[in-house]
């Protein structure tokens, strides 16, 4: 008999991890829904949903960063620079369009050219920092795995 009541074997650990993954995804999607509902349907002030937005941002960034570092699955040296630049441009474009959509359509505000330019520069800077940080983690993770193999 199993002596300890909570002595998980590999099958139970695997099942437990699957449940944790499912519940994590459910929690994240629920939080996204709650945040969007508060922001765009209830039109609550930023203070009312800022904590959820921060939590989501940190959570997803840490998830991406740790996945890239611990799996080491992306080999940056095998990706062409032009592909990275095109990916970055698309990322910026989506971020910029979302920002415009948010202010112009969802919040119904008029945006001047200066505000648009300011928004674009903010998106470029934040996206640049994110790409650099995630790229660095991917590089370090890949190097770590290579070292382990050798």
């Amino acid at each position: 008999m199993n002596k300890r009541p909570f002595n998980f074997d590999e099958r139970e650990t695997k099942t437990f991890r699957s449940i944790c993954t499912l519940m994590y995804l459910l929690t994240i999607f629920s939080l996204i829904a709650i945040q969007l509902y508060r922001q765009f349907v209830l039109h609550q002030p930023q203070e009312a949903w800022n904590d959820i937005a921060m939590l989501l941002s940190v959570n997803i960034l840490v998830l991406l960063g740790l996945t890239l570092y611990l799996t080491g699955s992306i080999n940056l040296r095998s990706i062409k620079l032009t592909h990275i630049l095109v990916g970055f441009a698309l990322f910026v474009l989506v971020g910029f369009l979302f920002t415009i959509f948010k202010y112009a359509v969802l919040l119904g505000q008029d945006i001047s050219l200066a505000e648009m330019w300011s928004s674009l520069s903010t998106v470029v800077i934040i996206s640049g920092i994110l790409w650099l940080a995630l790229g660095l983690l991917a590089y370090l993770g890949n190097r770590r795995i290579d070292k382990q193999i050798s």
Partner: protein
Amino acid sequence: MTYICYIAFMDQRSRMKLKLARIEKNLTQQELADQVEVTRQTIGLIEKGDYNPTLNLCVKIARTLDRTLDQLFWEDGTHE
């Protein structure tokens, strides 16, 4: 149809290998489970073919039953 029946038969045979080896060794599912440090349910599910054990667990089971991995887990007729 014949091929599907053959596959099902071979699958059942390969599943039976673990059970037969355990019985030949005079071990119950619980005793084998205790020796390889898993639960009885896990051994039951492996024998039934409903759970794929890790290589580590396969090695532990093979050692406990004095068999090789091939003898316990390799499907007959698929060596080549």
